[in-house]
């Protein structure tokens, strides 16, 4: 099993009556609610947490891309990843990811990801989401019905750019480039492992299987509901005659570990409530621009986490419901271990993207939970899939000898203190 520590980087200062007073946490949330001075400290706190996760022994540290969003302060996850690459040396850096259709030209993604891969010594996991409708259509103005086509072309361009050793011309429908010539090139060959985060578009499954990419299901409704969707994915895997390595799939899960079940509730309940109440207060009209989903996906009637049903539910969920219904995995190390195992086996996943910082959680609680998980949960779950132990197709392959800039800082300080 591979465990990646994820931080969505929520804004923790949304007012108590946010839900009543404001239209949406995403797209048109008034930016006067953002205070850049607080933001300064917050970025450093969140990046420190990601670095702490590396020190705790998590396999990966993860960031993602959202725009105009009160629960995701990373319009550019690549900037954060670059900072992490300098101050960590071991964990994979999972950028899940860059929304390809938003970059003009998308060769920018090939370049920045190559930079990150080189900077980190080959530790990049490269995520290529189509992007939510909120980000892609409403914030970045992409035409809904053309988004997937544009994404597909951008994907082709990036993959060719990563693998070509000669300049080439690209005559696309959305991008025309006379000279595509990637400089720098990524360390990992033939390219960094690719993760495709999906929210439930069934076309995404075939896309992942066509290219042998990891399918990462990201939802906030937990593993019990995620099962329906991942069962569909595994059926597709079988139908396509692909091997059933659990490392083909990843799942994002909110996780809260306390010394006891009771401590977990006492410490984390209010922050989880902040997340579900305020951070998921997304105006329904922004959830799904007409044309963004294909008719096939709509007909498959897959769960939409932003449906009216969920929206009203989110505001009333109690801690007990959240835990019992599997929205979150929370409790003592023993409880969490048990539930994690149930989730991992139930969904057949090799990668967990664990959300350990939730809502407006203070720094120490996030660290407390992460540490308990790293020390008392993670070691017991390492070998859930013994028959696939050596399957590293979806993991990064760093250089064996890498620069250690994080150690250089202290050396430089000592050098500076020496009398000349």
């Amino acid at each position: 099993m591979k465990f990646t520590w994820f931080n969505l980087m929520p804004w923790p200062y949304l007012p108590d009556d946010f839900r009543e007073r404001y239209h949406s946490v995403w797209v048109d949330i008034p930016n006067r609610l953002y205070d850049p001075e607080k933001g300064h400290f917050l970025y450093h706190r969140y990046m420190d947490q990601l670095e702490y996760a590396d020190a705790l022994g998590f396999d990966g540290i993860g960031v993602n891309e959202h725009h105009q969003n009160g629960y995701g302060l990373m319009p550019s996850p690549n900037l954060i990843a670059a900072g992490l690459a300098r101050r960590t040396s071991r964990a994979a850096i999972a950028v899940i990811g860059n929304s390809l259709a938003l970059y003009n030209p998308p060769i920018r993604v090939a370049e920045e990801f190559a930079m990150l891969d080189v900077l980190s010594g080959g530790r990049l996991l490269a995520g290529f989401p189509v992007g939510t409708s909120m980000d892609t259509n409403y914030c970045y103005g992409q035409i809904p019905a053309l988004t997937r086509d544009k994404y597909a072309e951008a994907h082709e361009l990036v993959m060719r750019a990563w693998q070509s050793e000669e300049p080439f011309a690209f005559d696309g429908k959305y991008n025309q480039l006379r000279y595509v010539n990637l400089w720098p090139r990524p360390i990992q060959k033939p390219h960094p492992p690719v993760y495709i985060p999906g929210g439930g578009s069934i076309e995404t499954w075939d896309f992942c299987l066509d290219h042998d990419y990891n399918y990462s299901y990201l939802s906030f409704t937990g593993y019990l509901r995620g099962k329906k969707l991942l069962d569909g994915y595994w059926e597709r895997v079988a139908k396509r005659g692909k091997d059933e390595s659990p490392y083909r799939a990843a799942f994002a899960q909110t996780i809260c570990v306390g010394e006891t079940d009771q401590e977990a509730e006492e410490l984390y309940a209010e922050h989880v409530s902040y997340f579900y109440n305020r951070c998921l207060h997304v105006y329904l009209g922004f959830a799904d621009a007409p044309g963004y989903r294909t008719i096939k996906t709509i007909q498959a009637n897959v769960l939409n986490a932003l449906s009216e049903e969920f929206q009203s539910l989110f505001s009333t969920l109690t801690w007990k419901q959240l835990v019992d219904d599997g929205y979150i995995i929370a409790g003592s190390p023993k409880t969490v271990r048990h539930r994690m195992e149930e989730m991992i086996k139930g969904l057949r996943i090799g990668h967990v993207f664990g959300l350990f910082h939730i809502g407006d959680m203070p720094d120490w609680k996030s660290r407390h939970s992460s540490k308990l998980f790293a020390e008392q949960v993670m070691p017991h779950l390492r070998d859930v899939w013994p028959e696939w132990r050596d399957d590293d197709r979806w993991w990064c392959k760093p250089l064996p000898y890498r620069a250690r800039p994080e150690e250089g800082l202290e050396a430089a300080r000592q050098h500076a203190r020496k009398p000349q």
Partner: protein
Amino acid sequence: MKTTAIETARGARVRVLEAGSGAPVVFLHGAGGLLPDNPFLDQLAARYRVLAPEFPGYGESTGEEFLDDMLDFALHGWDVVDALGLRRPHLVGHSMGGMIAAEMACVAPRDLDKLVLVAAAGLWIDEHPIPDLFSFLPHEYAQTLFHDRAAGEALLTGGLDLRNPNALMEFYIAHTKRMGMAGKILFPIPNRRLAKRLYRLTAPTLLVWGKSDRLIGPVYADRFQSLIRNSTLQLIDEAGHMLPYEQPDAFVTAVTRFLD
């Protein structure tokens, strides 16, 4: 009205509502498509040969994949006129259909007789932003599109029982197909630079607007009038954006007076 299916030279299969005889009048519908009942078309058919094609993605018309951008839509409009074997028809376009009709008239100004733009899309005025139709929830349409909200709601659902999950799914899929297509020329801002081409529009043009249009307000009618040299404006009382449906008599009177 009877329906016929035609195929354009490009390969789109288009359903056309047709009735009447006389000078050909091509009616181009808005982003929501034709409603189950279109009484103003029946009334116009008393004097003209009325042809109302449905765009790909609307009703039973297919060929969405052929249309990506504004030029595609405008050329598709002329492809339909050609497939119907019409010569110099009058063009009447409502909302998105008005935007397309205006583009058609700019692309081929000598191929039409007269032009009627009804609450047409296609321009953008920063001081008067058009509400974002694409983020509307179902209950928000009627209040924005109609002068009389309650009457509008009944017209939009066309008697469909949306409490029935199957009916709701069917409606949602049709709506997604329609608005997905409309988004290609209307999203995120319904402006594909028509303004810089309107100098080419030489056909006599009537602008018809509802006085209480809350989607594309009458201020847009004034802007169209200033950009189209040979144009006149007719405002209609107690009518919103869906004025042909809301005030069919006044609409037909205005159009007939202009075309005759």
